């Protein structure tokens, strides 16, 4: 049973949140991770997510909104099932990051922060993801794919469409 009656989260996530607020010297430290984990489950930070997290941490909803607007990974609108994040920062740019971004735009038919009509993919141009030595690199949800070419991107998209993401296969495209 969750600490919160009528929780909007799955029993696992609710239990995780029950625990998370107990481990820190101050409850509020759970806020940023909790927002991210909530987004992982719900898909975005909805009004209901904000309300429940505020209740769990004893904060005003305004406090939660104030924090969430600071962090670039947190979104208040749904994205596609697979969020494609293309790094175009300096190291990736030098090795074709913009070509990869243009290819993704063309291939998916969407622009920055767009989502395909079937809801499978969304696209984002992002700042450095810490894969500089294996550039160009992208992240699809939390999975890193590096040393990319446009051909590898095509294979990746097909794998994700077929439900064969590295999450399920443990294998990356090489």
């Amino acid at each position, binding site marked *: 049973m969750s600490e919160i009656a009528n929780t909007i989260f799955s029993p696992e996530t609710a239990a995780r949140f029950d625990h998370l607020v107990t481990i820190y010297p101050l409850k509020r430290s759970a806020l*940023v991770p909790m927002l991210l984990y909530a987004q992982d489950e719900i898909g975005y930070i909805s009004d209901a997510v904000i309300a429940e997290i505020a209740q769990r941490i004893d904060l005003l909803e305004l406090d939660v909104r104030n924090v969430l607007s*600071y962090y*670039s990974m*947190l979104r208040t609108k749904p994205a596609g099932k697979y969020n494609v994040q293309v790094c175009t920062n300096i190291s990736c740019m030098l090795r074709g990051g913009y070509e990869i971004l243009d290819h993704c735009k063309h291939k998916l038919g969407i622009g920055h922060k767009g989502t395909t009509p079937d809801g499978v993919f969304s696209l984002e141009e992002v700042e450095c993801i*810490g894969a*500089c*030595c294996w550039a160009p690199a992208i992240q699809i949800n*939390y999975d890193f794919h590096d040393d990319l070419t446009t051909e590898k991107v095509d294979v990746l998209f097909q794998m994700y469409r077929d439900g064969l993401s590295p999450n399920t296969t443990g294998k990356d495209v090489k």
Partner: protein
Amino acid sequence: MPSLVSHPDEVKVVSRRFGMGATDIDKYVELDGYKAVQQAIAKGPEWIITEMKASGLRGRGGAGFPTGMKWSFVPKQSEKPKYVLVNGDESEPGTCKDHVLFLHDPHAVIEGTMIAGLAIGSKLGFIYLRGEYRYLLKIVERAVADAYAKGFLGKNIFGTGVDFDIITQTGAGAYEVGEESALMESLEGKRGVPRIKPPFPAVVGLYGGPTVINNAETIANAPHILLMGGEAYAKLGSERNGGTRLFGISGHVERPGVYELPMGYNLKRAIYEVAGGIKDGKKLKAVVPGGSSCPVMTADEIDVGLDFDQMGKAGTMLGSGGIVVLDESVSIVEFALRTIAFYQHESCGWCIPCREGTDWIKKTLTRVYNGGGNKKDVDNVQYLAENMLGRTFCPLGDAAAMPTIAFVKKFRKEFEDYVEGHKAGTPIITVEQLVGAH
């Protein structure tokens, strides 16, 4: 998955367990893991700090502050609990060394955190990873859980009566949180807006308690230093720059990767020998030597030793160890624009010089790059950047200003060529249009 690279010139200390399966706690123990922390418990805080000072280890996040000294600044007596904070919010463009560290040797980070805790009299450490590093967070969480299961963490660790706990934490996307006081704000569940200093974290840090905050690589060096002895570690490096360092070489080189080289190693050799030279036989144009905030070096300036002092003398910084190599094909104007666009995106807007400065430099460079610039634009870019320097709470303003100034100073002609090269009849973009050009 990031591939591992190797070169005979490497001196492997912090990377010595990379690729050896040391994420497994038994393997880590087999490879001398958790020996240093037990020695640290037996010999006490003064011994730890003496060894750390003797090692000459300087902060690997980029500031280069002597680690032993930082630890010694924490007051012995404190009414509030003390904390150790590990900064794994690696976000400086060009930097991916902690990525490899968490991937291959998470227990070294844990053990280092414990050693820092013992040195300052803290019972709780936090390991903070950037939000994008979820798969690495899982590796670190697993390692922490394994350490608890073995009795290496928690109450009465190693049966010595000492308690120490570690909490892992994820960020959610913010470059600025890599700044130490901003990271504390984030860990307290707030916007990552930096705090004014003083007071410094060693006195008033996380939750108002004395706090040691170190980069993940700095922390991971601690067990190695205690095992080999501070002096032996110091000797691996150059004067006042002890030990070795993880250098991530990226951009236009034949063999990009993270290499561990002695402090003071020659930059030119790092690019031409270690990383295999410039990709596709092209010519070198410039090097950004330590992450995007470091002033750019021209091709004829790179015959210099990679340590904090020598790089400072050369008019740039050692920074985060992320060496970004640019070949002759790169437009410095485009590169400068991409750099400032990053800082404009990441500015939190708290300090006006940074908020306005990054935005106006980006707007001005955008029109220079697109061929609509006028002659004053180049001077204006430099003027804006110089007025950000030293006028902000946190170093983000400096981080944006320093590279911008260097790009303009060292490659001024290229900027002017963009301005003069614009075709007659191309409409000049007005200030009004720029303001609307978000």
